[in-house]
């Protein structure tokens, strides 16, 4: 089939970007969206151009690397599907696709369709864990977890950290992502001791990163490739409010947001570094 692609090209964070039109005459229905871009990139390289930079790794919908907007929809038209698993059967001959990166101030652009999502890692670092050092664990069956609770935790834990929820949200809120982690850990018995501090810290970090607030629009869950339900946001809000009441003086963990990439070795407290 024939397709017209309008792809966002931008050399770097400080240069101006624009949509560039590419005509493709021979797209196979069985290809994935990313394979379609591979084919286009091979052509571009052949012509001496730079290929389109896009993020990808597993190509099975689980690593969360890939993702871009297709005609304004995060991950494109198919329900519960990342762009790496989106086959071209979802389009028809003559279609025109506008492909753009996630846009959110907490996801600064790096190049073309690639953005910086380290803000998500910092949200997790601020409290998205259960503090159990290696070797501290009791026998795995010492803590029983009813099946429905384990299933609910798993539903929330399925989040792949792709960022589509943020890209789809008019407020660029990270509530679905943050709520998913808070719910995964907060429903499990193992997660109870830190439940309140976790909610406070993670929400504070998300705010610090510049993600917007949630106004219950629901675009996030509609595009989420793992169909994380809105219920996780309700749970986050409940834990947050309960925590704010009970833990007034609690010390909240946050981390300084940063966007620079340059010379990591100097960031580190390395006793052997001479300069």
């Amino acid at each position, binding site marked *: 089939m024939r397709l017209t692609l309008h792809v966002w090209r931008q050399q770097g964070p400080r240069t101006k970007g624009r949509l560039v039109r590419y005509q493709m005459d021979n797209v196979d229905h069985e290809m994935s969206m990313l394979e379609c871009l591979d084919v286009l990139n091979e052509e571009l390289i052949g012509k001496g151009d*730079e290929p389109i930079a896009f993020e990808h790794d597993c190509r099975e919908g689980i690593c969360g690397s890939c993702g871009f907007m297709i005609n304004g929809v995060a991950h494109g038209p198919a329900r519960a599907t990342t762009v790496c698993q989106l086959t071209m059967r979802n389009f028809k001959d003559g279609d025109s696709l506008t492909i753009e990166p996630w846009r959110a101030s907490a996801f600064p652009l790096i190049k073309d369709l690639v953005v910086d999502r380290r803000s998500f890692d910092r949200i997790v670092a601020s409290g998205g*864990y259960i503090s159990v050092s290696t070797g501290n664990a009791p026998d795995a069956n010492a803590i029983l977890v*009813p099946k429905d609770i384990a299933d609910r935790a798993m539903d929330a834990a399925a989040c792949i950290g792709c960022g589509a929820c943020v890209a789809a949200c008019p407020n660029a809120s990270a509530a679905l992502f943050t709520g998913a982690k808070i719910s995964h850990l907060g429903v499990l018995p193992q997660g109870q001791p830190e439940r309140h501090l976790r909610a406070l810290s993670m929400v504070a970090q998300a705010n610090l990163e510049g993600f917007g607030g949630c106004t219950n629009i629901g675009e996030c869950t509609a595009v989420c490739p793992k169909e994380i339900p809105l219920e996780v946001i309700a749970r986050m809000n409940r834990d947050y409010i309960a925590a704010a009441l009970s833990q007034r003086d609690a010390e909240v963990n946050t981390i300084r947001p940063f966007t620079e990439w340059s010379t990591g070795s100097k960031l580190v407290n*390395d006793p052997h570094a001479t300069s």
Partner: protein
Amino acid sequence: MELNSRLPTGPIETAWDNTKFEMKLVNPANKRKYSVLVVGSGLAGGAAAATLGELGYNVNCFCFQDSPRRAHSIAAQGGINAAKNYQNDGDSIFRLFYDTVKGGDFRAREANVYRLAQISLEIIDQCAAQGVPFAREYGGALTNRSFGGAQVSRTFYARGQTGQQLLLGAYQALERQVQAGRVAMFPRTEMLDLIVIDGRARGIVTRNLVTGEIDTHLADAVVLATGGYGNVYYLSTNAKGSNVTASWRAHKRGALFANPCFTQIHPTCIPVSGDYQSKLTLMSESLRNDGRIWVPLKKGDTRQPGQIPENERDYYLERRYPSFGNLVPRDVASRNAKHVCDEGRGVGPGGLGVYLDFSDSIHRLGEKVIAERYGNLFDMYQRITGENPYQVPMRIYPAIHYTMGGLWVDYHLMSTIPGLFVLGEANFSDHGANRLGASALMQGLSDGYFVIPFTLGNYIAGAKLEKVDRSHPEIRNAEACVQQTVDKLLNIKGKRTVDSFHRQLGKIVWDYCGMSRNARGLESAAEQIRELREEYWTNVNVPGSGADLNQSLEKATRVADFFELAELMCIDARERNESCGGHFREEYQTEDGEALRNDEQYSYVAAWGYRGYGNPWDLVKEPLEFHYVHPSQRSYK
């Protein structure tokens, strides 16, 4: 060169405990004075970085993805083994040990495998405490399934996303240490060389994939946990970025590479659909618990599967292996699929596929039960192929999936370069010539959470590590090497893309060093690889610059290393004149076509030493001894 594998003496049951007891310890207050580089953030690297951080070391952790959570371990579907015997079905540490040694076709070290089986218990405890949402019974206890050719139910799982959930557990533990200031994380940073000073690994050279900066990181020890090299075949179930570069550069700096030809072909993957295909998708082998594998009895039968009556179907695994049936180990299942397709009985486009049919199970258990067990896999299959596996049988074909070979390590997981430790799929240690299902996750976590924290401490406590000066000539030299490679690739400006070379290389390796191999083919493949490599270095086209995000350049450096590795794989496969596990040499088979081992001559680990570009490698042999599991012909009949 003599290899000292530092194997423990005495009874195997207490060997690891005794080894731990004899190890030197680093005083808790001193740990913060030592720094460690952990390259890789998958199960092995993530677990290691988190645990070393908890112990108090200064850890820098590196990965090439934008986040440590995206390491390829995330894609593991099926499960993780542990000898908990929660199902009371006769499992034990010894049985898991026995199955793994036998499953590896007697080409792994007994002591390592025994330790792995012991540690398997602690892994499940640790992961459950971290909040990994393993599948549970209604009463709240953990549940298990049988998996990958085991006759007991010892596999723990989290729906079809076990690797994801285990990795998120390790990732969260890692981020906790980031927050505590004990681990500094360097995403989008690729290791391109190892720095060896006075015979010890003391640092790495990296390229920042966003800015292109080439940088050196120094430390007291280096841990590589950079995963497997299955992408040498181009089409594989590995993530697109999986590569051998870190291991290979360490190999070129003196680390021996062991058993490179031991690669695993997974029997249940979605068949190739066209030339644009960029990777292969695995369908978890847990599907073989309820799916029956068959092909038509007649050659070239093009009828729809539903139109082929029972008596014209060949359930070839059930027929040939009545006691294991569809659950034979991977190497056996894969070879048999190839065999029936070679006979012209394959199904689907190109005849490279066999059916995996759920109709009997759906009939017996109901669609709901099947959906509960495999729903997400069925959805994935349907998304990719457009066919509904509840109604028509899946089509599957083998694909490269895992690499048992890797950098040689001793019992302490240290390579032949002191101070360089190798964990997870990147080492060669525990799976011999064939890996059983659900055991790679176990090994990665065992290495990372429970082995390296002890052995690395022992190394640091026993080594006198002088401070390294940044102006040391070895550092300059390594940085210059990296810069030269990058510049050279960018300046060739040839006519072919990196991918076109990679595809061609992959096809050679798949055809000659894949599911079945022979001496003539391997010799010819090595020759073809050398020729193609020459062309690569004169005719590859890498657009863009070295000073920003350049994905073509990333691929180009990785493919350059795959070329060298591919040649060594063929040499290793040619040298091993026997069939064992995933290494099937056509010349060495039993009358009914099963792998024929030669324990007299080949019961050893083949560890290869690098002697310079274009020179033949040195082969060093580590003999294997079996005191607890007597080598026997594997039989799954």
